[in-house]
């Protein structure tokens, strides 16, 4: 499965890029996070405290146990601070 992964705000800065594409067999968001963490230190750091991370699947807010079936775009970002 090929995913586009987006990062925003300090997650983008820690990981050092705004987006990437990834070929993965992960079945849930949590699996995907484990896979990313294992790749490089910058990912492990960015995802060190998941309470400070939010996720959207195809531009809808989701939970970490949500399945990735049919998903094309995953976005990770900190809690939102608009308004």
């Amino acid at each position, binding site marked *: 499965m090929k995913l586009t992964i*987006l990062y*925003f*705000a*300090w997650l*983008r800065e820690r990981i050092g890029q705004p987006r990437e594409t990834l070929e993965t067999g992960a079945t849930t968001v949590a699996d995907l996070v484990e896979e990313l963490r294992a790749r490089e230190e910058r990912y492990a750091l960015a995802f060190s405290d998941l309470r400070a991370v939010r996720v*959207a699947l195809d*531009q*809808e*807010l989701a939970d970490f146990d949500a399945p990735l079936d049919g998903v094309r775009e995953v*976005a990770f*970002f*900190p*809690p*939102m*601070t*608009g*308004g």
Partner: protein
Amino acid sequence: MRIRVQPEPFDYGAEAGAFAHGAQGAGAVVSFAGIVRDRPGGGLMRLEIEHYPGMTEKALAAMADTARDRWNLTDAMILHRHGAMAPGEAIMMVATAAPHRADAFAAAEFLMDYLKSCAPFWKKEITAEGADWVAATEADEDALSRW
């Protein structure tokens, strides 16, 4: 219902006036503006807002739809900037129009509470010392529980 996401400054008075003017059948119009505030100790040079193009517009439209389902509104608008802005500039606004004031007020507060915690915007404060991402407050996430 109007949703706008833009980097350009906007004129709150002109937008609120045009909204009220176009609000056919409304007896009550509520407008809210969020303004860039300096930090408690001063020294804010500018605010930068990052957002998630595509998701932002969808999230704002979904909130406005929910507000129109829950309250008797004749119209609603949300306008939010992204990019760089200076202290004193308007960051965003919401406006609601309704036959009665209770609906207009409740819907405007609902939109603000949801916008704060559920629309993909992130604020960064730039001072002479550097740049800090603004932390989300618990009060903001707690505010959602009242709706």
